[in-house]
């Protein structure tokens, strides 16, 4: 598996370097969108309002959203592109399972995206004057968010495997993710708070906001919930992917587009 990871990392790195214009425009695009959002929020709130740690919370959510978009693009978008360009079947001829290949690809891609997202985060912090803290414990809730993101990406990949053309669904799904990751669900009261535990990636996002924006220590009970949430969505994604793979093989859908 580690061998596969290194090869995927090399492939991703070569492609990023060779087609750097695409990736740079993506980073700039995401930063500009955020800056637009930031400016309009400030305009609506009025000049006298200090956004403070609320702004920091939004930045955390926004950066997580961009992570999720990268993962979604790599797994679900990647599956669709491979079907389109005619390399998908070659991947299914590997002794590694397709889920193994795409998850490894997702991790390799994420390793590179960490650097890119770091750039986005720095750009946003410079532009908005935000000061986020980066305690090492943030890696734990971040891990749970990523598990959930992989699970959702595999679920969307399952759709791509069976339906092929999923651009429209992916487009709508991006906004759903935006809602999940930017809404401060921790402020919901009563039974709605229970919903936070069940929604994908939300418990981990909530923890990250507490750690990075409000400088609170890691709540281990909350972390356990976030971990269970992430693992549950990953298992669900893997299950759906397995079902979709069997379905695609039964209906002869792997080759066509």
């Amino acid at each position, binding site marked *: 598996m580690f061998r596969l990871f290194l090869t995927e990392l090399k492939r991703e790195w070569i492609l990023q370097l060779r087609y750097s214009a695409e990736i740079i425009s993506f980073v700039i695009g995401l930063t500009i969108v955020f800056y637009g959002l930031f400016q309009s929020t400030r305009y609506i709130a009025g000049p006298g309002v200090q956004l403070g740690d609320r702004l920091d919370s939004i930045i955390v959510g926004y950066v997580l959203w961009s992570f999720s978009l990268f993962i979604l693009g790599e797994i679900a978008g990647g599956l669709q592109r491979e079907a389109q360009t005619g390399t998908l079947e070659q991947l299914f001829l590997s002794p590694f399972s397709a889920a193994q290949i795409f998850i490894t690809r997702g991790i390799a891609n994420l390793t590179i995206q960490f650097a890119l997202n770091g750039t986005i985060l720095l750009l946003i912090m410079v532009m908005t004057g935000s000061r986020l803290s980066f305690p090492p414990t943030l890696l734990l809730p971040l891990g749970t968010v990523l598990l959930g993101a992989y699970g959702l990406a595999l679920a969307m990949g399952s759709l791509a495997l069976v339906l092929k053309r999923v651009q429209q669904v992916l487009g709508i799904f991006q906004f759903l993710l935006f809602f999940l990751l930017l809404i401060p669900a921790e402020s919901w009261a009563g039974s709605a708070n229970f919903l936070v535990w069940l929604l994908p990636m939300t418990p981990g996002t909530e923890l990250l906001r507490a750690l990075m924006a409000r400088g609170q220590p890691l709540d281990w009970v909350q972390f356990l919930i976030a971990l269970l949430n992430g693992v549950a969505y990953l298992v669900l994604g893997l299950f759906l992917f397995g079902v979709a793979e069997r379905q695609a*093989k039964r*209906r002869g859908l792997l080759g066509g587009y």
Partner: protein
Amino acid sequence: MVLTAHHLKKSYTSRGQTLTAVRDVSFDMSGGEVLAFLGPNGAGKTTCIKMIAGLIQPDAGWVKIGDYDPHSDRRALRLLGAVLEGNRNLYWRLTPEENLEYFGVLRGLSQRVARQRGQVLLERFNLTHKRHTLVQSLSRGMQQKLAIAVALIHQPQLLLLDEPTLGLDVEATLDVKRLVREIAAEGRAILLTTHQLALAEELSDEVAIINNGEIIAQQPTEALIQQFSGSAYSIELESAIDSGRKHRLEALGVGIPAPQTLRIPQPETLYSVLEILNPLPLLRVEKDRASLTDVFLQLVRESQDV
């Protein structure tokens, strides 16, 4: 046996209608054998190939590559390489060297072995000078040669080639033919589908003709052609035959469709005919031989009539 396909069946259902792609296909292959899988469009060739590769699940029947079923045991995939028709099979944004290394690891090799084998294959396929060129900038022939090289990176026992010469120019076709012969000579089994029947006749040891999802003929290529070839001989003379010889030949039952052409329906009279013709200069003496195209068309038409 390198490959055994046993009573494969496959149907698809679309908008309430069931289409049978493969009714009942069985065959096996041993190492070094080239089997040409021939059939008209929609006969079920590609579905069969994909069922063998584990890409389409059969409704009934089973496949064994070596001792493993590609649908349930991933070890089977280590014994299999494939170049699928209509697919790029390669990453166009990578170079030949990068593709070979990437797919080598994907097929279970270490990075070092994949790189070493990649160099050897590039040299053997005359692609070393293009090793740093992006695949999208290579000619169609080079891309196809590279796809075959990539399919061989893990040294599989079975190679599936779906229309390997489709869209290639004469030179590239010759290259692919040479490679197929070489690969088979190494002891690998090659299952080949093609619409170019002359190519199949030239390369295959055995032919399986499939129509409407069923194998309608399967025999060694030479035996099949012999079976459909007549026993008559044709002789072509340098100049027109004189009337004296003409009468003697006609008495032997020889047909004379043109003044310089003789047709001898009974092979036992051949030497008597040659004695009559002696010492006239001859251009050609030939036994009637069907081509694979004749055999294919006759069999497919017969099966459609049935």
